């Protein structure tokens, strides 16, 4: 499966970034998400304590999985760009595309988590180690995207963002450690039952599995398309001026 866009510059002949492979992934994703809907909303049982609220889990857990997967891909692609001999720009675009997707699904995770928390704990937010780390991670990757948006040459952008992407790998365990230590030393009597470690019913577990598979496919599909779009943006920046000049010349030819 190649990451390059199907037709390099001839955007006039074909619009879109799909190939047969991505179409297949796309169709599979839709089917799996349909299945997730069926399993999550109809087949899986309501929870004894939480009732139907437990169904948020089928979106919440797969999306946090997707976000973490995306950030791992960003880190790996950053390392490939930085340490690889060719300083592959494709790796840089994959890193960028993956981080964008990760940020979106981290937001989905936070929002669904808050809604779920409001229903089961009675509050939207709790200063628990996992939640706090997730929120800081979310902000860090927004920072990463801001670095990608900085002015400068493309290779400069790629190197800067690769370093920031790798520094984030250093940051995550430290932030997690500190927040955990903070909460463990300062744990006040909690009124909320945060113990979500419920033993999952077999069908629930299977539905969750369907969700994880569906979201992994979704990630793959989004990543392929988004990195192709980024390739096209880079290409159009490269050829855009030439194309514009040629177009003006053609216009001149027609009217003259």
């Amino acid at each position: 499966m190649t990451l390059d866009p199907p037709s390099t510059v001839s955007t006039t002949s074909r619009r879109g970034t799909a190939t047969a492979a991505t179409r297949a992934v796309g169709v599979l994703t839709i089917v799996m998400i349909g299945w997730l809907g069926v399993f999550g909303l109809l087949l899986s049982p309501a929870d004894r304590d939480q009732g139907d609220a437990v169904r948020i889990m089928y979106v919440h857990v797969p999306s946090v999985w997707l976000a973490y997967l995306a950030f791992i891909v960003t880190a790996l692609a950053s390392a490939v760009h930085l340490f690889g001999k060719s300083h592959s720009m494709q790796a840089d675009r994959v890193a960028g595309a993956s981080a964008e997707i990760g940020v979106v699904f981290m937001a989905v995770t936070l929002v669904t988590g808050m809604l779920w928390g409001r229903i089961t704990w009675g509050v939207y937010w709790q200063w628990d180690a996992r939640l706090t780390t997730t929120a800081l991670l979310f902000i860090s990757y927004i920072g990463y995207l801001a670095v990608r948006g900085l002015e400068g040459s493309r290779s400069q952008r790629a190197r800067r963002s690769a370093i920031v992407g790798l520094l984030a790998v250093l940051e995550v365990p430290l932030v997690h450690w500190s927040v955990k230590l903070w909460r463990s030393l300062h744990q006040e009597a909690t009124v909320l039952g945060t113990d979500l470690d419920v033993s999952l019913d077999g069908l629930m577990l299977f539905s969750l599995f369907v969700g994880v598979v569906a979201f992994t496919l979704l990630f793959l599909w989004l990543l392929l398309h988004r990195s192709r779009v980024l390739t096209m943006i880079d290409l159009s920046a490269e050829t855009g001026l030439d194309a514009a000049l040629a177009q003006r010349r053609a216009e001149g030819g027609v009217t003259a």
Partner: protein
Amino acid sequence: MVRAVCAKDLRIEQRSKVLTSQIMPFALVTLVLFAFALDGDAILERTAPGLVWLAMLFSSMIIVQRSFAVETADGALDALRVAGADMSAVFWGKWFALIVQLIILEVVLVVGAIVMFGIDLRVSGLVLLVTSSISATCGLSAVSTIYAGLASGVRGRESLLPLLVLPVASPVLIGATRSAEAAFGAGGTVVSEGWPWLGLLSVFAVVFSFGGSLAFGPLIDD
């Protein structure tokens, strides 16, 4: 080389006196504003460590911006590069100069908090406060130097730098605040509770200092 860069930064500071004439007053104003916002002596005494470190973090953003503004203003960083300076030496030099300035600021803030927020600093807590502040400062300085180097010379860096540094610096804020709390005995804490935080702060400082010295060259290099 490290010493030359550091001495240069400190000399610029000594001559321009921005730290004493602008940043220190800003930090103290922040403390006064905290007092207005959190009306009540008991609350202030309880939250003083956090307030000191928040004021510190915000003021440090200004110092860091300045530390790199002087480099990019007349293409000084390019001149260093053309001169063949080792970029990791430049990193260590700027890192150390920043530490010196931040520690001066910390002393002022802690004294300010003692006077204004009514903290009594115990002698046993003093050792903890000094060691934890030094390691926190090393870490903070490293992180700030990395990201300020990255953001130097681009438009919109003033708003980008806090976005990049503050989430990464959150372990420093947590660790430094908790150990300062133990040192001040705020909220009935005892000094021994502060020591575990020193480990965290030291690891943070070591990781980001060495990470920074490796990353700095490629970051600055165009």
